[in-house]
Each structure stands twice: as structure tokens, then as C-alpha cells.
């Protein structure tokens, strides 16, 4: 059936901010869908609150609404745009949940629109645990024994019936949020209560444990003629009990025979039909008992997912694009396979390589969090790699992680020749292999080094012996490699390269430098060839521009003589380096393609738009290491590489690339160094007669103490080379500094710590600017809402500034451009300033695209990364008609989104170490309303009535009075701890005192739990005070109560509440804001 002609316009629901469990894979799927729908001539409307996405660039949809993803906002959009249909299956769980509410609350009916892709009934059948189970039972598909609990009593009762351990799965949450594994009654009660509160429908599935079973996923597509195909099978290396998002996974599946696999395939077809997903992609998870092959269905996602993004990248089959086309009426056979151009999409991809995905974690940011992996997802990103064999792919994936390992690094430092292990070592190894943590795979390798058997490791880890033996083989190879004589060439190098060993790992194993290994390899003319990903294992001709390296015979790249630019991506998402950088890389690629260059993208993050095979002229799905990138350049011979868009990852490679003879386009390596090297940068600031907070470098504890004395406390301390404020702290006294310099960071000659005067109560300002080497323009000036000292990535900010005066803004802009000019920046640069008492301080400058570039782009309507990319290839700003800063009339507020609820025991108080995973944007005509929108979008929606709990530190007391008074005027009731309450009453503001936790009961936490409090203002400082008030913040978070932990953001919140009381929020498309330019 051809496309539906009864539809003309379609609203696509996005997935909102990047959070754990829902990352930029939905930018990828959304972009594909928008492209596909537009190709078909539909008018597209988009709702997404996340400015860091490509999909929210105004060019992708006809109408783009950067608004909170709520029923209210969606209803207003439906009222304005009157779309014929709503497509909810490409925006993750967020979009699906919104669709369910829109349908159930009658909103869709009210505006005469319909869901396409999946109907309400199918969504509920898949998502509602009881209905899913009933449906499976009805069609004779085996599921784990379970009960659906709606109260804690149910939880306990089912728990008793099923026996421990038990799996708890809340309904309608994403990434297994709120779920877990209970091994005893206490844990069952704890997790049960949490799971019930996290499930929007207060429902949790208590499930028989299939811990230790093998886990598989099938990516299934169905069209409206009931044709069903399996796009990809994925096998989890980690067994059941570890969330699939946290598991190392492999595609295609490796350990099932045809008989078993086809049985699973049959089940998948039955499931998708019974659930009734009419069109599109679904993901079905299976557990397989390794002892008898019993297969149970665990769950199904009636939408595209993180796994479908992975499956798309793993096979070359664009699931989201096809899902969008199926949703508007096409059948699979009517859609051409883009890759072969000659065959239809109704087929199952055949692949002739192995794909390995490894999740990326950020536990170092949450030191108190439990590192054990369970059914609730904790990873923040992932890498994927493609190799011709599993071992190649595994080793590539390991080095893609950028965690300092270049292979199976030994956690006990035994890289190299065989060394003895003590009984204590072995005990530690056993316990590390038994517990699933991010490092388990390295411990498995260590176990083999220590001589443990596959049989024992299987028992300990429940990892399939096939995977274990692959690791064993690599460990054996490492032992042989380590026997290479020192000073002589490494024997059998070709064999090791074919096993996937990096030069760096070989160097470490044979105790020589990486460049020595590289030189040997080059002397032996050992280079990888590049193979194509083509969906069909070479059965048909394909010119897919999608390549990966392998040490084999035939090279399939046929580089042409066009002018090529190599763009280095940003690797796995992590806190501090997320989708914003992918956004910049993608814009750069588009700009350079439009300008007639051939673009070559290198990246290893499967969630991204940059790794879509048609984003660039050619995609190299490869690790972002010097070795891998140099090999690509060797074959392609680009005019140069662009390193300024992918965050720190490519920047770190710049010098090495230059040494390998690859030109760096844009800002020079020399300039990068001048900005990153503290001492050089200090001289630059001095030359320009600008101001830096007093600072110093300390190589030891004593030096640190002396420096701090000179500068005066409080000081800001950090290690010398950091990303996202890693290990950054504000220290108030000698004691704190001593602890920091000895325990936390261990200052040393090689790794000094940096000490800055901490600018108290300063306003922080972010500036992005762009230049062509001669002329410089400020892209945007952003005033932070939280004061300096809170990491810029975690702070809310507003463009244009909402409180700074024009002269200050002008001066800040002048300074930023002066810096850029002095450093001879070509492309983008971000500068952070602090304004304190009328003085402007420079905090730091990064001569690369920053996290804020997409936000500034949305706010100003100018694609700054595109502008910068063209500058980098020599097109001047004048040629691009960029001559001055554009200051929009509307206000744009960016707010950060945090993963605190994923990590039990994490404190929500903000500091210099970045911990947010994503961001949202609120746009409106006033700051207060834009801020209100940003808060709603961040899941921190402000109340318009109720009780506010206020507890502030002494220095904030004066500032809070006015805010409290205004809240009372808004008919809020104030509840405060005794000190704050007394102070407020002295100032004539009525406030009811409430007990602190240490003061007896009922105390404030009781009131929070009882739902009495609708808003929390809590500022605090000092170790003890922070510890004392921790439970307030934690319970506030767990109960979903909006909270603010800085006086400045409290102030913004009050303004927003006042604005909300004046009238409901409205919606406006980005295109309308930008047209007002």
C-alpha cells in the first residue's frame, strides 16, 4: 500500500533531555524520521525540549517546538498546528508515555488527531506488566513466573510465593529505573517501595529470578500487511540480571544454534503480532537457560530504542527511517534498501563481521554510588566497534572507551610477562569476577592470567564460556607477545594485529613506546584495510559509505581525488562530553558538504547522528585513537582534520596527528596549547591586561598550602588536566586542602594541582565566539543563574543576560574577542568569565566548540558550528555574512538535568564537578517564563500554591527575605527550620518552624515524605551542614518535589512562580522566534 493520503501533517514527539537510559539515540531516530516524512511530502511538527539535538535545528521540521514534553504543552501545540497524526514511537519512553496520556485524557480525540506507529492498546499491552504477561500466556509464550504488585503488601506476598532472589520491574519507567534485584525480605521492601513510587501507575512486577541465564534481544519490524522481519539479533555477554544498557553486547548472536535461534525468531513474531504493534520497530528481550535451552520472554518495547539504534549501526539497516515510512502506510517491500539500491527492505540483514558494544560509566562522579550493575541502568553512554572477528571488535571497543586502557589492561598491573599472584589477589579476582561491575571484563582477563579455569569463571560469572574463552585466547596471546625480546622487533606482528591488538597495547606488553611499535608496523608495511557495512555480507553490490578497518587482504575504499576533510567525533557520551559535541560535528559535516568538500566522519558512538551513514560522505566507524585515525588519513589523504568539534577527545589527538603529517584545520595546535597550558595562558591574559583570579600551581601538599595562604581561602582546586570539572572542589581551610592534596588527587611533580582564588557570589558568564583569523564575532553571551563555583555545565543560564548591564556585557564581549584574536583562533572558542563587584575575571578559555554551541544556535537562529567549520577551511566571516553579534528579543534559558535518582546516596547539591547528563531549553518573552518552562522541561515543574520549605545558610538569610515575602504574597505558606524561621519572622515574614532531622519528630523529612511540601529552597555550605541536611535533599528528590540549592536559582524560581500565577504558559515555534530576527 502506498503512503497514506489522508494525512498531511504529523507531530513527532521527541525524547527530551539526555538522561541515563535515554540518550542521543533518539536524536538519531528522530532525525531519520523527520527526513523520511519530509521526503514523503508531509508537513512535520516536532516537540522536543532538548536544544542539544540536531533534530531541533529549525531546518529539520516545518514547525519546531522547543517546549516542555508535557500534556499541557502538547495540547497547546495540537490546538495551534492541528496535525492529522501523532507519531510517538521514535522518542523513547518519554514520547510513548506522553502519547498514552494524550490518548487517555482525550486530548487526541479533542483535536481530531490519531496515533500512528503504535496504538494505545498495543502500547499498554506491551508496557503494562500484567497485560503483557496475560498476552504472553494466552499465546503460549513462556515468561518468568511473576506477580504484579500495586502495594507493598502485594510485593511482600508475591515475594513469599516466588522465593528469592527476585527481580522487581516497575511499569512504564525507562532504563529499568526504580527496579532492582532483591536477595532478602529487607531488600524486597526497600526496592518494592522505591519501584512503586517510580512507576507512574504505581505498579511493579515481582518476577522469578532468571539470574545467570543468557540474555538476547531481537530487533523486529512489522508492516501493516503483517510482514515481520528480524533486523538484528543481539547477545548480551553479561547474563540476565544486568540491564541490557549496562551489558557488553555482541551482534549477531554467537552461541545459539539455528534450531534455537529460529525458535526465538518464531517467538518474536508471535509476540509482536499478539501485542499488536501495527507498524515499525520493536525490541524483544529473551532469557535463555544455558542448561536446557528454555526460552522466556522478558519484555518488549513497542518503539525504537537504544538497541534499535545499535542494531541500525550494526547492520546498516536504518530502522527509524523505515519505521517512519511504515507508520505512514508503506509496506517493507515498497521501501528500497538504501544501501544496495536494488533490493527491498523486506529482508533480514546478513552481516559478515562482529559488532561489540560496551557501555561507558561515570561512577567517579558519584563516589558514594554502588558500582554493582543490576536491572536499573547506570551507564551514561556507549561505544560500538566493528571487527571481522569477535576479538578484533572487542579490542577495538575497549580502546574506544577512552578510559586509559588500550586493550584488556590488567587491573592488578600485570601487563607483560607472567607474574605470580598471591592467595589474596586470587580471592579479590574471584570476588570481582562474581560481581557485575563496569570493570568485570578486565577482571575476567586477570583471572586467566592468574590461572583460573573457564569452568570456574563460568560458575562465578555466568558469562557464556564462548566469550570467556575468547578472552582467554587474548590473554594467552598477550603472554606470547610479552615474550618479545627487548630492543628487537615483535615477532608475528601481523598475527597480533589481526587479533585486534592496538599498537599502544603491544607497546605496553613489550615495554616499549607506541611509536616504536608503529614504526615496526610501518616498516613491515602492515596496515589495515577497510571493509564495507552493506546489510548483505557482500552478496550484492553496495557503495555504502560506511566502513570499518580490519587487517585483511582486500581494501574496499576507493578514495577519489576530491578535497576531503576529516572530522573527528567525540566518542562515547559521558558527563561533560555529550550530544552537544555530536551536534557540532554533524553541523560541520553538513556545512563542509554544502561547500563542496567531501566529508569523512570518524566516531565510535552508535547512538549518534554523526554515525548515521548518510550524514557524511564517508563514515569510518572506528575508535578515536591516534593509530586508528592516522590509518584512515593514510588511505584518504584529506586536506586536513578538524578537531575542534568533538570535545576533548579529538583535541587530545591534535599534536599526534600533526606529528604524523596531518594538517589541523582551524585553530592551530600551538594556539590550543597556549589556551590549555596554564602558565602560557596566564601570560596571554597578562599581555592583554585582563584579569584572572589569583592562582598558582602546586606539585606537593606543602606547596599547595603555601599557595592557598598567599591567595586566601576559599580556593578552588582541581587536577591539572580535567574534563567536566572532574575532581574539582571548593576548599575552605588548610584541613580541607590537606585532605584534597594528599588523598583525593595526590599532587605530584607529574600531576600538579591547580589552585585558584574562589570568587564568592560572583556571576558567571559563558561566551561563545567565532573567528576566521582576522575578524571575530561573539555568538552569544550567557549569564549563569547559579553563582560561580557551580560547574558551568550544571548551571542554568540565560541568553541574553537577564541581569548584567549593557556595559558589562560589552566589555565581556570585547575581552572574549581580544583573547580569540590573540590566540589566532580559527573557528569556535568558549570563554568563561566571573563578574564580581564590577570586576570581570577570566576563568578559562577553550579554543574549541563548547557544550553551549547548540543552545546558542537555537537561541540566535544561527548555526554557529557550520560557520566555524567554514572558517576552518578558509571561508571568511565576511564571505559568510556574519558581521556582528545577534541579540534576540526573546529569552532562552538552559537548564541542566541530573541523574541523581539513579544513584542511591548521591547528594543533589551542586558544585564545581559536573554531574548533569543533559539539558533542556525554555524560550519565552520574559526571563521568568522562560525559566519556568526550562524547569518544567527538566522535570522540576514549579508549583503555584502550597507550602515552601526554606532552609538557608547564614550568608543567604538576608537574600531570602524578599523571596519569602513574595512567595507569601503569592499565597504560599512558608515552613522553615528554626533559625531561618526566626530570622524571617523578625523581618516580618510569617513562617512556621519545623524540626530538623536531628531535633526529633515529626521533622522536615517526615513532612516531605507525607507530601506536605511542594517546593524546597535549601542552600548550605560546610561539610557538616551539608551532611546534616543531606536527607532533606535526598527525600525531596525521591518524592519528585522541585528544589533549588542556590540562592540565585531560588530567586529565579520565585520570579517564575509569579509569572505562572499571572497566566498559563503558551507555545511558540522556533521558526516564529527566528523569523522575528
Amino acid at each position, binding site marked *: 500500500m502506498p503512503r497514506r493520503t489522508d494525512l498531511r501533517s504529523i507531530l513527532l514527539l521527541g525524547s527530551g533531555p539526555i538522561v541515563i537510559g535515554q540518550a542521543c539515540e533518539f536524536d538519531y531516530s528522530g532525525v531519520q524520521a523527520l527526513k523520511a516524512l519530509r521526503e514523503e511530502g508531509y508537513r512535520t511538527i516536532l516537540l522536543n525540549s532538548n536544544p542539544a539535538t540536531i533534530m531541533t535545528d529549525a531546518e529539520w521540521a516545518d514547525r519546531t517546538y522547543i517546549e516542555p514534553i508535557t500534556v499541557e504543552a502538547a495540547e497547546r501545540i495540537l490546538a495551534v498546528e492541528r496535525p492529522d497524526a501523532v507519531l510517538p514511537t521514535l522518542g523513547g519512553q518519554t514520547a510513548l508515555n506522553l502519547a498514552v496520556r494524550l490518548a487517555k485524557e482525550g486530548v487526541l480525540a479533542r483535536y481530531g488527531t490519531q496515533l500512528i506507529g503504535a496504538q494505545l492498546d498495543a502500547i499498554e499491552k506491551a508496557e503494562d506488566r500484567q497485560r503483557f504477561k496475560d498476552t504472553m500466556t494466552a499465546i503460549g509464550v513462556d515468561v518468568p513466573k511473576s506477580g504484579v504488585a500495586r502495594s507493598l503488601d502485594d510485593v511482600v506476598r508475591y515475594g513469599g510465593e516466588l522465593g528469592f532472589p527476585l527481580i522487581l520491574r516497575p511499569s512504564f519507567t525507562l532504563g529499568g529505573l526504580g527496579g532492582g534485584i532483591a536477595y532478602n525480605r529487607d531488600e524486597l521492601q526497600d526496592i518494592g517501595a522505591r519501584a512503586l513510587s517510580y512507576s507512574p501507575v504505581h505498579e511493579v512486577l515481582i518476577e522469578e529470578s532468571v539470574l545467570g541465564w543468557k540474555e538476547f534481544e531481537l530487533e523486529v519490524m512489522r508492516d501493516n500487511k503483517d510482514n515481520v522481519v528480524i533486523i538484528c539479533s543481539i547477545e548480551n555477554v553479561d547474563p540476565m540480571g544486568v540491564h541490557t544498557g549496562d551489558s557488553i553486547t555482541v551482534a549477531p548472536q554467537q552461541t545459539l544454534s539455528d534450531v534455537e535461534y529460529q525458535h526465538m525468531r518464531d517467538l518474536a513474531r508471535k509476540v509482536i503480532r499478539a501485542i499488536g504493534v501495527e507498524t515499525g520497530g520493536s525490541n524483544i528481550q529473551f532469557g535463555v537457560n544455558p542448561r536446557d535451552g528454555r526460552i522466556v520472554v522478558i519484555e518488549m518495547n513497542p518503539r525504537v530504542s537504544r538497541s534499535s539504534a545499535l542494531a541500525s549501526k550494526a547492520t546498516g539497516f536504518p530502522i527509524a527511517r523505515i519505521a517512519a515510512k511504515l507508520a505512514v502506510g508503506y509496506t517493507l517491500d515498497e521501501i528500497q534498501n538504501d544501501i544496495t539500491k536494488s533490493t527491498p527492505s523486506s529482508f533480514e540483514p546478513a552481516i559478515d563481521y562482529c559488532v561489540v558494544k560496551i557501555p561507558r560509566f561515570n561512577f567517579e562522579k558519584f563516589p558514594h554510588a554502588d558500582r554493582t550493575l543490576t536491572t536499573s541502568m547506570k551507564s551514561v553512554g556507549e561505544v560500538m566497534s566493528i571487527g571481522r572477528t*569477535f576479538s578484533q571488535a572487542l579490542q577495538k571497543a575497549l580502546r574506544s572507551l577512552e578510559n586509559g586502557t588500550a586493550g584488556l589492561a590488567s587491573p592488578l598491573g600485570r601487563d607483560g610477562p607472567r607474574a605470580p599472584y598471591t592467595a589474596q589477589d586470587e580471592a579479590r579476582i574471584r570476588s570481582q569476577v562474581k560481581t557485575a561491575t563496569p570493570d568485570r571484563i578486565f577482571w575476567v582477563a586477570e583471572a586467566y592470567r592468574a590461572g583460573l579455569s573457564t569452568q570456574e569463571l563460568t560458575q562465578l560469572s555466568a558469562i557464556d564460556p564462548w566469550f570467556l574463552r575468547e578472552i582467554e585466547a587474548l590473554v594467552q596471546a598477550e603472554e606470547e607477545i610479552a615474550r618479545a625480546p627487548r630492543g628487537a622487533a615483535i615477532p608475528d606482528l601481523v598475527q597480533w594485529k589481526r587479533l585486534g591488538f592496538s599498537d599502544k597495547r603491544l607497546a605496553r606488553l613489550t615495554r616499549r613506546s607506541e611509536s616504536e611499535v608503529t614504526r615496526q608496523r610501518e616498516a613491515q608495511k602492515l596496515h589495515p584495510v577497510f571493509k564495507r557495512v552493506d546489510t548483505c555480507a*557482500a552478496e550484492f553490490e553496495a557503495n555504502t559509505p560506511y566502513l570499518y578497518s580490519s587487517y585483511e587482504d582486500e581494501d574496499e575504499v576507493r578514495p577519489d581525488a576530491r578535497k576531503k576533510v576529516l572530522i573527528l567525533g567525540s566518542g562515547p557520551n559521558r558527563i561533560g562530553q555529550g550530544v552537544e559535541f555530536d551536534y557540532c560535528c554533524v553541523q560541520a559535516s553538513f556545512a563542509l558538504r554544502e561547500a563542496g568538500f567531501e566529508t569523512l566522519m570518524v566516531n565510535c558512538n552508535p547512538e549518534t547522528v554523526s554515525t548515521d551513514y548518510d550524514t557524511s560522505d564517508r563514515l569510518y566507524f572506528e575508535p578515536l585513537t591516534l593509530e586508528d585515525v592516522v590509518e584512515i588519513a593514510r588511505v584518504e589523504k584529506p586536506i586536513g582534520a578538524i578537531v575542534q568539534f568533538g570535545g576533548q577527545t579529538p583535541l587530545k589527538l591534535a599534536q599526534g596527528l600533526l606529528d604524523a603529517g596531518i594538517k589541523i584545520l582551524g585553530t592551530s595546535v600551538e594556539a590550543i596549547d597556549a589556551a590549555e597550558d596554564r602558565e602560557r595562558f596566564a601570560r596571554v591574559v597578562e599581555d592583554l591586561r585582563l584579569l584572572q583570579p589569583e592562582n598558582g600551581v602546586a606539585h606537593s601538599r606543602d606547596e599547595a598550602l603555601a599557595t592557598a595562604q598567599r591567595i586566601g581561602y576559599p580556593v578552588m582546586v582541581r587536577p591539572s588536566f580535567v574534563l567536566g570539572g572532574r575532581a574539582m572542589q571548593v576548599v575552605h581551610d588548610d584541613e580541607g586542602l590537606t585532605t584534597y592534596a594528599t588523598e583525593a588527587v595526590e599532587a605530584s611533580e607529574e600531576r600538579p594541582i591547580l589552585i585558584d582564588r574562589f570568587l564568592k557570589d560572583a556571576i558567571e558568564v559563558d561566551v561563545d565566539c567565532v573567528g576566521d583569523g582576522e575578524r571575530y564575532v561573539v555568538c552569544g553571551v550567557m549569564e549563569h543563574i547559579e553563582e560561580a563555583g557551580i560547574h558551568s555545565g550544571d548551571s542554568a543560564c540565560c541568553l541574553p543576560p537577564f541581569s548584567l548591564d549593557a556595559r558589562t556585557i560589552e566589555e565581556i564581549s570585547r575581552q572574549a574577542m581580544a583573547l580569540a584574536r590573540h590566540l589566532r583562533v580559527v573557528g569556535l572558542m568558549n570563554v568563561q568569565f566571573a563578574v564580581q563587584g564590577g570586576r570581570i575575571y577570566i576563568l578559562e578559555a577553550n579554543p574549541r566548540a563548547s557544550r553551549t554551541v547548540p543552545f546558542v544556535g537555537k537561541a540566535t537562529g544561527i548555526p554557529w558550528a557550520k560557520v566555524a567549520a567554514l572558517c576552518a577551511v578558509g571561508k571568511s566571516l565576511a564571505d559568510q555574512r556574519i558581521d556582528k553579534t545577534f541579540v534576540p528579543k526573546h529569552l532562552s534559558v538552559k537548564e541542566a538535568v541530573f541523574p541523581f535518582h539513579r544513584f542511591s546516596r548521591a547528594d543533589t547539591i551542586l558544585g564545581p564537578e559536573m554531574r548533569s547528563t543533559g539539558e533542556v531549553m525554555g524560550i519565552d518573552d520574559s526571563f521568568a517564563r522562560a525559566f519556568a518552562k526550562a524547569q518544567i522541561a527538566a522535570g522540576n515543574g514549579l508549583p503555584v500554591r502550597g507550602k515552601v520549605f526554606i532552609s538557608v545558610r547564614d550568608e543567604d538569610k538576608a537574600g531570602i527575605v524578599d523571596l519569602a515575602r513574595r512567595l507569601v504574597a503569592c499565597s504560599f505558606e512558608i515552613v522553615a527550620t528554626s533559625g531561618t524561621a526566626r530570622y524571617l519572622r523578625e523581618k516580618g515574614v510569617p513562617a512556621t518552624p519545623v524540626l530538623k532531622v536531628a531535633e526529633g519528630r515529626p521533622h522536615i523529612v517526615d513532612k516531605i515524605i507525607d507530601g506536605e511540601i511542594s517546593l524546597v529552597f535549601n542552600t548550605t555550605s560546610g561539610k557538616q551542614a551539608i551532611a546534616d541536611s543531606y536527607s532533606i535533599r535526598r527525600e525531596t528528590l525521591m518524592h519528585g518535589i522541585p528544589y533549588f540549592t542556590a540562592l540565585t536559582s531560588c530567586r529565579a524560581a520565585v520570579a517564575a512562580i509569579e509569572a505562572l500565577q499571572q497566566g498559563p504558559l503558551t507555545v511558540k515555534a522556533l521558526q516564529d522566534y527566528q523569523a522575528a530576527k
Partner: protein
Amino acid sequence: MKKATLALASGDVFEGFACGASGEAAGEVVFNTSHTGYQEILTDPSYAGQIVTFTVAELGNYGVHHGDEQAPVPQVPGFVARRVCREPSNWRSDEPFLAWLTGHGVVGIEGVDTRRLVRVLRSAGAQQGIIDSSGSSAQALVEKARKLPGMEGQDLATKVSTRTAYEWNEGVLGRKPEPARHDVVVVDYGVKRGILRQLVDTGFRVTVVPSQTKASDILARKPAGVVLSNGPGDPAAVTGADRQAAELLGKVPVLGICLGHQILSLAVGGKTYKLKFGHRGANHPVRDLVGNSIDMTSQNHGFSTEEASVRGKAIVTHRNLYDGTVEGIAVPEARMFAVQYHPEDSPGPHDSRYLFRRFLQMIER
């Protein structure tokens, strides 16, 4: 590891390592893109005389399970792989893959850039080739490969067929068959056990007869239906097969599978031809023009029915969506239908098993 060489008549040479039995293997080099099912593939008599290249990256992972084979022993002279697993991991595994192949004298080569090989076969067509680990020069092997006879004109079906008739009564493993209601005779041109098992499951008592069995002898058994099986080689070369098949038509319901489909195409007066590199895999989309559904099919054939040649003599019921080739024909009035692909899968998707029920319905109508 011992080095081995694969030489093609085209002159292309591939280096790798010997695995499986040692020695030399000669045959037509073809490739299969299925991710699973190596045991079924290597024991499928349709591959007689062929060296099978597996495009899947890792081979042998789940070992060998006695019961999954399609004939008592492997049927191929040799195989080509990128990487082969020594120690399998699967609860059903009875034996490691290589141990099994070595025991049955199958010569293998691994470590080959199989993707390059497939690309050669795709553009130059399926080729005669030799795997050798004795150290012969590449040039000598190429010369030798060039002298090997091609598939065209080779009657391999007669060679692999059973010599004597026998009865088969095992259904699909782990399933309860329908009670037997009808007798069916299967003419064995190299029949896969998957076909026999499906027939038993569907409710047939199965007798397998040699490929040279005369139509009159078959009819003398008074079967409710006759199945012409799959098999290797050139359909046009199978001695007397088309004539015998023609004699059956109209007298008894007939189902043809793969080579059986080609023989029936010849029997109605059509022609067959050799495909450039054949269809071998588990992901080929085929449209059932009768039911209008699309099935993922298991495929293994090097020859195909020329569509124009059967026009007016049979109706085309199935079509391959990859290249538009004929995948099924029927002569309803003669109660005959046939498919080019494998409804018995083994290995491959189970989407087309309904064709056995369709055969049953045709008989009972």
C-alpha cells in the same frame, strides 16, 4: 597452524590455515550468508560437489548436535571460513565442529578474507576451486581448478540418491507430529531430512525412493501424494527425471522443492539456467503471489527456472524480491505446486512451513 591455499579457476588465490581433515578438496566454490545452521548446510546433499564459503564471521560456536544433520554425514568436499571455534559452548552440543568434520574427512580452510572471496564470486560467478594444504604452488592449483568439470551437465542427484527405498517416521525434534493420515512418496534427489520431518509432522507416512524410480513404480505404491526433493547439480542433467515427473502429473498430487521444482519446470516443458552465483542463505524475501505474504526463506540453489519458458504451462506462484527470479510454480489442474526455496528451512526461518499444510490440503481437496 598449518598454511592452506584456496585457488579459483578465475586465478584468484586466497591464503589461510588448514582446518578439518587434511588433504585436498575440489569443487564449485559457493557462499552462504546465513548466520546460523552450518551443520545443516554442510550435511545438505544439495551441496554435493561444492566448497561452501561461510560469510558469518565466527563459525562453529555452538558445536554439532546429532539430530540437526540433513543427511547422515557431511556432503561437501570442503568449506571456507573466516574463523572457526575449537571449543563450542551450547547445551545441545555433542561434538566440536572441527572434530566432527575431521572425522568425516571434510577439508577446510580458515583465516581467509571471505569477504574478498564473496566479492570475487559475486562478480566472476561461482567458480571451480581447490583447497590444498600440501604446499602445492598457487599456479599449479589454479591450473588444476580450471580443469575441474563445471556444474552444468553434472548429474549429481543420481549419485547422492538412496539406492533402496526406505520408510521415514521421525518428525521435527521435540514436537508431536499430527497423526498420520496419508502415504506420501518422496523421490530422493538428495533429500534433506528437514523435508521428511516436516512431512511426518504434517500427517504423512513417508516412503523415500531412489531418484531413478520409474513413475509407474511410484504410482504402484498408490501414494496420496508425491514429493520431488531437493538435490545437487544441474536439473537438466538428472537422467530421466523430467520424463518421470511428467508422467506423474495429473495422476497424483505433486510437491516439488528446489531441484524438484526445477525438474517439474522441465516436466511442464520449461527450461532452467544457471545463475551467476546462486542463492544461498536464510534471508531472501519471497513473495507468495497467492497469499500475497512475504516470507524470509532458506535458499540453496545455483540453477533457476526461466520464467518465459513456463508461461502458459504453469503459473508462477512465488517470486524472489531480490532479483525477481521464479521461486514457485503451480499447475492447479494437475494438483502440482513447487517452490525453489526450502519450506523445510533447516537452516533458516520457519516462515514457509505452511506449504506442507497447503500440500496436505491439496491432497484432501
